[in-house]
Each structure stands twice: as C-alpha cells, then as structure tokens.
C-alpha cells in the first residue's frame, strides 16, 4: 500500500507547456504516472508528449477524470493556479513552484480549510509511490518499492537519504517532499499520521531542517499517537541565526527559535533516533526492521 498517491491517481499538469512542466511530464510518463491532461490558459487544444492540453482544470477533470494536479506555474501566477485546482474538486494538488510570496500562501492556507483537497508543497520535489506513480520532479530511479515511509522538507536531502536507504535494501512505501517554505499544505504531522495508518509502512524516516516549529510539534504527536517507529534527521546544526539558508523557511530566528538543537532534543524526547549523518539514518532503519 501507500499514502496519498497510487496507480489510480490521474494527473493534470498545470503549466505543462512550460520548460519544466513539459520536461517533467515526460519524466512522469516514463515512470508510469497516469498523466491524463495538461491545463494552461489559452493553450487548450494543444498536446504535450501526447497529453491533451485544456484551458482550465475543470475541463481536465470533466473530460479526463483527473483527480490530482501538479503545479509547475511560475511564482507570480502560482497562487491563482492553486486556487483553481482547489476549486476543481481534486483529491490532491502538488505544488512544485519555488518562490511563491508568503502572503499568497497565507490566502491559500486559509482556503484549504474550506475544501477537502490535500495540498503538498509548495517548493517541494513532489511525492512518489515507487513502482506505481510519481507526481513531481523526484528522480525515479533511486527509489525502490518497500516498507519505509519517508517525509522531508528538502528535495535533494530526500534523494540523499533515499539513496542510502535503497543501497541498504530498504525500499520505500511512499516518499513525500512537503516543501521548504514557511507556509505549506501537508505537514509532517499529516504525513506521519497517514504512514501510521498504512499497514505496509513499517518504519518512518522524517527529515526536518531549521526554521519554524513543525518538527517540535511533530515530535509531540509522535510521542502521543504514532506507533510506527520513526528515525529523524535534522539539517542545519551549523546554521547561524538570522540567515536564510536557501529555503525561505530555513532560518533560525534572531530570538533563537527554530534551531536544530531544539528540534533534535524534541524528537529524542519523543523516543526518535536522530543520527548525525544520512548514512547513519539508513543504519538506524536496519535496527528497526
């Protein structure tokens, strides 16, 4: 089994005619994802890698039964694209776009409370259920099907950890990149709960980083409500306060919140193993399985 996406996921790509949208549509098709439509205003009637393009997401839902979207729309138009997706009765929206203004995401976040659609991202690599489907830009060939659930705020760190896991023979049930922005849709907690409810996920790897308090909140939930064993990893132990480390959300505040030390301590207090290197994360999974 898996969480959030599987063989039945039917994808509409918003921004399919752009460079990234087109390239990754090709990659997703090659992986076996059911990319059933594209949606780009004014480009209805075209096709990209054999996928029909519509002017609106609603048309893609009506004509192709799309139930999920992947957003490759540039930052200035991403809020609108996500609102359109949320207004089209999809089950899932995966926003890859990096650099969406935070106030735009505050409006999206507010809308999310009123709809049943799940948002993953933005500023994320997407989600993959190995051997079934991937929505996003993750390089499919490093993943293997298995029983480790992975959730991470960072793209390339996900790849690194997956590489270590796969090399040790630990395939993944689903890997979710939740994104490096201050305001995101699906959180660590949402994902941890979903993995915990998935009978085929036997261990969870959670990769966090400096900034915000999501890891601390997740630690409290792990302690109280997650039965599946969790291995944690936190990036940014050496990050100085007040400097944005690449991701908009990866910043230790001047007041000292959001530090790696606080996150590691919270996770360890919740009984989570938190190794210092990605290779040791995979080794810690050995101990659990």
């Amino acid at each position, binding site marked *: 089994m898996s969480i959030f996406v599987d063989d039945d996921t039917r994808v509409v790509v918003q921004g399919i005619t752009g460079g990234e949208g087109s390239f990754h549509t090709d990659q997703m098709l090659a992986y076996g994802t059911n990319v059933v439509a594209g949606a780009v205003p004014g480009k209805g009637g075209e096709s990209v890698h054999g996928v029909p393009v519509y002017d609106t997401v609603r048309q893609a839902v009506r004509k192709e039964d799309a139930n999920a979207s992947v957003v490759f729309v540039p930052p200035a138009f991403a809020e609108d694209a996500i609102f359109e997706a949320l207004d089209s009765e999809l089950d899932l929206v995966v926003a890859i776009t990096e650099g969406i203004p935070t106030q735009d995401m505050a409006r999206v976040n507010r809308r999310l409370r009123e709809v049943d659609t799940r948002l993953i991202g933005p500023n994320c690599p997407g989600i993959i259920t190995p051997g079934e489907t991937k929505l996003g830009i993750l390089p499919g060939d490093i993943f293997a099907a298995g029983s480790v659930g992975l959730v991470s705020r960072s793209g*390339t760190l996900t790849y690194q950890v997956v590489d270590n896991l796969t090399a040790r023979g630990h395939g993944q049930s689903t890997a979710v990149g939740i994104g490096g922005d201050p305001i995101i849709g699906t959180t660590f907690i949402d994902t941890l709960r979903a993995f915990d409810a998935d009978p085929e996920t036997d261990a969870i790897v959670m990769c966090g980083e400096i900034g915000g308090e999501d890891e601390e909140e997740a630690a409290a939930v792990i302690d109280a409500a997650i039965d599946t064993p969790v291995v944690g990893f936190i990036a940014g132990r050496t990050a100085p306060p007040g400097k944005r480390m690449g991701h908009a959300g990866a910043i230790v505040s001047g007041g000292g919140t959001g530090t790696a030390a606080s996150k590691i301590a919270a996770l360890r207090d919740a009984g989570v193993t938190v190794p*210092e290197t990605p290779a040791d994360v995979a080794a810690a999974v050995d101990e659990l399985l």
Partner: protein
Amino acid sequence: MKLHEYQAKRRFAEAGIPTPSFELAETVAEVLAAAESLGYPVAIKAQVKVGGRGKAGGIELVDDEAEAEAAADRILGMDLKGYTVEQVIVEEAVDFAQELYVGITMDRGAGQPVAMVSEEGGVDIEAVAERDPDAIAREHVDPAFGLHPYQARRAIVEAGIDAAVARDVARVLQTLYDVWAGTDATDAEINPLMVTTDGEVIAADAVCNVDEDALFRHPELAEFEEEEARDELERKAHEYGFDYVRLDGTVGIIGNGAGLVMTTLDLVDHYGGEPANFLDVGGGAKADRIANALDMVFSDENVDSVVFNIFGGITRGDEVARGINEALSQFDEIPKPVIVRLAGTNWQEGMEILNTDLVTVEETLEDAVQRAVEAAAEVAA
C-alpha cells in the same frame, strides 16, 4: 529584505502613521544643517540594518551644535555589528510619557498573519515575549478580510493600553496592517510607539522587512535591494544569483538544494572541520554556473579546501563535471584542493568526464566531506 529605518518610516508616514520629522545625512556638515533646521534637541541615529543600535552606541540624543558635531563625527563611519555606518537620520526629539509596541508578522505555525500590541515598548520585544508572553496581546488575522477594527480594539484593551490613546493606537495598528499587506512584508513593527507628554501617539522607530519572493510586484522597492549585500563575496553571490551565506571556517562548500547543502555543512562540523560558507547552486545548474560557484569559493581567502556535493534530480552530473573541468583548467595551479562527489542523474557520465588531475573524486558524501576536512587541516598545518 530589510528596509532601513528611514525607508520604513517614510512608508509608514505616507500611509498616515504619525512620525517625528527627520532628515537623512551622510556628513557632519549635513547633520548640523539638519539639526539647525529641525531645532535642538535632536536624535542622531545610525542607519544600519541591525537591531539594538542604541545599545551598540549608534543612537545619540544631542542638545546643541557642539554635541551634535561630536556625535556625528563618532557615529558616521563607525563599525556597528559588522556594518559601517554611512548614513544617519537627524530626528526631532520626542518628549515621551510612555513607550508602546505594535507589530504585524506572519505566524508560520498558524499560517496566518498576527497583529501584536504591548504596553512594554522600547525594549527587545522578543525578550518580553520570552519573559512574559501575556504582556503581548495577539490577534490572528484572516487574510481574506484583513484586520477587523474590533480586533484592533480588542488587542488594545487586552494589552492594557490607556483608554485616552486607544483610538489613536488602533488607527496606527490598522494602518500598519495595511502597509504590511500592501508591501508584502514579513514583519512590520513600531518599537517604540511613543505616547508624548501631550498625549499624541508617534512612531519613534520603524521596522519593515519585505518578502524577497514578492519583490517582483514591488518595483518601487528595487532601489533598496542592492544595499543588501554585506561584503564583496555576498555582492558577488547576488550578482551570480546564488543562495550564499558566508561563515567563519576553512572548508568551502558547494552543493545543490538547501537541505543537502546544510547537511554538508553539518557533516564538515561532524568530522571536525569548520564550514566556510553555504552555497546552493540551485536546481538544473549548467556548466557556467558551476564555474561561477567555484570562482566564488576560491575568492574567499579563508577557504583552504572545497567540497563539491551534487545530488542530481534535475541537475545533471555530466554538466556539473564539465563546469568543474572548465573552471579548473583556467588555472596553472589549482588554488585549493577540490573534492567532488556526484550522485543521481548522469553521475557515472560525470565521474568519467571529471579530470582527476584537477580534482579528487569520492563516491559517498561522508568520504568526500572527510577528505575535504583533512585537506583543509593539511593546508593549515
């Protein structure tokens, strides 16, 4: 992006928030002329983008020309927490009875804006928040509607603000929210918001930090942006479009993706070295970008070795390898040892392309970092 006090204050004033009269000055003569026209006493305030300027000696209240000259001479050109003071504002002194705090920020956890009011202004508000969280009244704002007037009133009552100035403070808070939203700010703060001995409410300081991701829709702020860069290297990074943070160590780090680069820094520390920088080349970097990254790290004189760690998703190993070869072939002698580790998309091709006369190749992240730490130690010894 942080705005200077004077830039933020002008925006607040334009929106209708009362502020003291002030003038910007860059020389002692300009300070004296400004003070003359405003009338003594005046405050001379260093314009650098750091907090705690007063404690660090960057703000002085002066009563006459002799004092003003001495203060201006001292503050202009001084080093304030690593920044050289090039500009000051000369501001009319405010006779205050009380110092309040008002601010708007984004509450990440809640995913919505929050308006804050406190009677304990004039001090570090984060210290207040830690010592006595109840001293700050908070109202979360629904971004679809903005700050409702009742919310401003409620926050002011909860904060225990004197009823005599409640209406004026509410107006300031409401206006501050509108400026925050209209400027795409991450934070907008007035600390202190002074209540004068005459019962007027006036913004004695102004903080406004703008979301860099929203600058595309604020061309009016573009002129403030170039002042951001702090030193030569950070200016260069800005020009090349890299996410770059300079640190104090000797192991230079280049990688792709924020989380993985941070992890590489942490590993340098884990293996006993000290990271010299954070440099993220971003996704899909081509050969010239890789060469620029090497150029950046080489031009940091603290750097003794460089670890190059690329995990390709959309970034291709062969492109990276070509960029490294290209950049290094320009040198008669490689200035600093470079250790490369490639993984992910096209990594095998990349490994084959890499010229091992110029670089050391390692297969795992851990090995590459260890080798770089050792190399830096050898150079230092």
